[in-house]
């Protein structure tokens, strides 16, 4: 059963140096506050997994938390590039970043395999692309019935997956709705999981299109209102498009970034 704790306690307990960590949320419900807490707790050598690494991964990479990134699309949505990510890949700053690069279809299926307790997933993917030549976790497999060749990708089973959801009840059952992305799969695939929520309520009233993750499938829940900011939480808060735009000049400049990092580390309040 998921225990309800503070965000700081949850990160301290669940995220360890060297872990494989997945923060998921497909543009909606991104667990940004949890990412900032990882930065504040100065985790190191993480393998960060995320289909769409965006600002919070740019921040984690710039802060030196990561040694590797597993992903399928890394950008500042609607704005442009992730400059801390670029600086790490192109210049090794603040340290070299190993990358393992897939397509969305491949990443989604890696989580599905992980959630399903299977070692790999099969898809029609990567055909003719150069991805298979640079990514060792893309292989081929032959259908035992038709002889057809398809792509195979290994399961992702993170040490800890972190997502943000709208609500949990006091027993730790988690409810989310709107675009739910790959969050259920990310949580079910992981050894441990943390869900930050907008609020803890007495009862989870049903919501159109809502899904529920039973308490027994989640390790820890932390109440973090606004924990997805600057992304949005449908029914609670809008996307802060200004933040995405303002991130660009900060990210472009190491000195500006370091000021941001210092602020984030010391104030305890995400800039």
């Amino acid at each position: 059963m998921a225990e309800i704790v503070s965000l700081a306690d949850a990160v301290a307990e669940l995220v360890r140096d060297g872990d494989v960590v997945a923060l998921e949320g497909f543009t909606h419900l991104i667990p940004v506050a949890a990412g900032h807490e990882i930065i504040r707790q100065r985790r190191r050598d993480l393998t960060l997994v995320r289909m769409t690494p965006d600002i919070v991964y740019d921040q984690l990479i710039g802060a030196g938390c990561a040694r590797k990134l597993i992903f399928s699309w890394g950008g500042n949505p609607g704005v442009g590039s992730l400059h801390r990510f670029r600086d790490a890949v192109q210049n090794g700053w603040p340290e070299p970043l190993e990358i393992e690069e897939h397509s969305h279809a491949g990443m989604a299926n890696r989580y599905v395999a992980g959630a399903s307790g299977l070692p790999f997933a099969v898809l029609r993917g990567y055909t003719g692309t150069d991805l298979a030549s640079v990514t060792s976790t893309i292989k081929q497999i032959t259908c035992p019935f038709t002889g057809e060749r398809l792509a195979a990708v290994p399961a992702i089973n993170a040490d800890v997956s972190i997502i943000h959801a709208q609500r949990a009840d006091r027993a730790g059952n988690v409810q989310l709705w709107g675009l739910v992305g790959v969050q259920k799969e990310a949580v079910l695939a992981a050894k441990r999981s943390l869900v930050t929520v907008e609020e803890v309520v007495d009862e989870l009233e049903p919501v159109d299109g809502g899904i529920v993750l039973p308490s027994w499938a989640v390790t820890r829940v932390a109440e973090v209102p606004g924990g997805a900011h600057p992304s949005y939480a449908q029914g609670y808060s809008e996307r802060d498009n200004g933040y995405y735009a303002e991130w660009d000049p900060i990210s472009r400049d190491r000195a500006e970034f370091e000021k941001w990092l210092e602020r984030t580390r010391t104030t305890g309040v995400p800039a």
Partner: protein
Amino acid sequence: MSTATTELTYTSDEMMSIAAARALSAGQRCFVGIGLPSTAANVARRSHAPDLVLIYESGALGAKPDRLPASIGDGILAETADAVVSVPEVFNYWLQPGRIDVGFLGAAQLDKFGNINTTVIGDDYANPVVRLPGAGGAPEIAASCHEVYVIVRQSKRSFVDRVDFVTSFGHGRGNGDRARLGLPGAGPTLVITDLGVYRPDEHTSELTLTALHPGVTVEQVREATGWQLRVADELARTPAPTSDELAVLRALKEAS
């Protein structure tokens, strides 16, 4: 850059978006990326193709936004969709089996055979000159949709002889490469830029200029193309945006 016609002033980006919108037909199922593809698809839906089915990789099937979504995960997509599904489902149940007519893609580099690069600029993947965002949904969109339309701002940097990295397979080196690989869809059948319109040659699959936007010359196009461009025998001229088309496009942008 802006171009004057008798009555209307519009930018080359507006011409590009409207030309792309016109390419979409009523009733088509269209897999849409954010940015230029989303703009074009929404213009089409709000003008000549009201029953166009927009599918976003974030899981919105049949989204009907009344403004341009700010991101692939914009709430308006879920709120207006016929159905919202998980990301694995959108790729596995909806894209992969070939249920989508048109995949609408952008590109950082596009080569003369319609191959797309959104991964790295430079020859060395491990030490790139520029690290780009990566693949996203594009490789499988390019593989599985019945057709692919590419929309891209054209320059010698973006319109290249051979992409540095094949993120999404177009026509390979031409001449049946797609069929040889067993790819189900027809690949890029249409490329729309801020200068003109291109289609693959039916024999060689090499992209060929088939239409020029108003005021653009073949000369200008050649200067913005990184290979020896072939020009169709019957070169068309794109009709300028109508005031209705511009009104729809600008209303969508303003609402965003």
